[in-house]
């Protein structure tokens, strides 16, 4: 094959241009822009659950479902309450009927009658989205429909979600579910519409026992931030490295 000098230069120019075309769709940040994006964060929403205080009334679950328009009788919920009853033989009896929506008004656990004399300890554990710093659910989304806002909350773009369910499988805490009406993935977002208006999340407001609290980790005067800094708190499934931001006071080893 022969090639003139003119033709060679021409081809090189064309190829370079064609190859550079896809790069034009990318966005490049200057170091200054990047720094601004990182340091402008004034808020990091975080949650504190005191399992010593929870009595399992389930008002938080009811309030959450009504506030966030989650179909009331569908077996899905953004927050739920688990009951743990530990008996003398070391066994943990766990249940959460309808996510604890109607409270725990029966002493039977999954139709099993437990003799009160055999119980060594019993407690209720409210659960909700951990708004992880390293959220696995966000990593797996193939379309960019779920993301972390600058105040740390993980949101779902209902218009953009294709309902593939990867995120539901990825969450180690099982907080995500398929919303039967919107046909998208759904989960707790710390009531983003309320926190951004200066209100407490619906579950926090509904709790009559102060078992659920929300706070700003970036604010040193915030009572929740102070508690997390000074008291002995634990998170769920720390070993997964997801850096969850729902902290628990009085968490038992039986809670998974």
């Amino acid at each position, binding site marked *: 094959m022969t090639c003139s000098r003119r033709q060679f230069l021409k081809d090189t120019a064309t190829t370079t241009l064609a190859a550079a075309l896809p790069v034009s769709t990318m966005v490049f940040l200057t170091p200054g822009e990047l720094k601004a994006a*990182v340091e402008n964060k004034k808020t990091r929403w975080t949650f504190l659950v005191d399992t010593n205080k929870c009595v399992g009334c389930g008002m938080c679950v009811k309030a959450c479902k009504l506030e966030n328009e989650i179909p009331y009788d569908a077996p899905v919920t953004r927050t739920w309450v688990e009951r743990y009853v530990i008996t003398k033989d070391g066994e943990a009896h766990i249940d959460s009927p309808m996510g604890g929506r109607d409270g725990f008004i029966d002493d039977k656990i999954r139709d099993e009658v437990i003799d009160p004399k055999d119980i060594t300890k019993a407690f209720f554990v409210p659960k909700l989205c951990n708004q992880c710093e390293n959220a696995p659910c966000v990593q797996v989304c193939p379309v960019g429909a779920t993301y972390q806002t600058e105040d740390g909350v993980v949101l779902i773009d209902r218009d953009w979600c294709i309902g593939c369910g990867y995120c539901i499988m990825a969450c180690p805490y099982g907080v995500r579910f398929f919303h039967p009406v919107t046909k998208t993935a759904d989960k707790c977002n710390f009531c983003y*519409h309320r926190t951004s208006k200066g*209100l407490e999340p619906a579950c926090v407001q509904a709790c009559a026992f102060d078992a659920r609290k929300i706070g700003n980790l970036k604010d040193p005067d915030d009572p929740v931030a102070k508690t997390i800094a000074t008291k002995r708190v634990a998170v769920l499934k720390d070993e997964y490295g997801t850096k969850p931001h729902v902290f628990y006071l009085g968490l038992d080893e039986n809670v998974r």
Partner: protein
Amino acid sequence: MKNHVLRPLWLAIGLVLLIMVARHFMVPEDFGVHGDSFTYNYYRLSNVDEWKDFPVKYQGRERCSKCHEENFESISHSRHKKIQCENCHGPAAGHPREVKQLVIDRSREQCLRCHALLDYPNSRRGMMKGVVSEKHKRKFECSKCHNPHNPNLEDR
């Protein structure tokens, strides 16, 4: 160059261009990296405002107290003072304009959420005043005897 090489090449280039043009029109302008990480902050920015605009249902007791001063006052002296009005009266969104009357949950189940006897040691639930529903006036609503705003019978 031979035609059988060029033709698929042009086709491929054409397809790429087509996809890029389609992408330009289909992807919203505010879709991109908004934050410090491509992994966690690649999203449509206007969705944040869409979530902020989601309607609030539970208004909180302070709003209730503006009109229902008496009822607010009565419960604030009782052991039920920590309980939000809307826990029993229902979310007050749209009240009083669109929703004239809120439906009060007077069911036994509502009271039993806290007051069903669960004899749990070292649990706050075990310390609550509880009843075994089947054995305690099971044909009546609790409010027949116990005023929810002042539940202690001795105080009456």
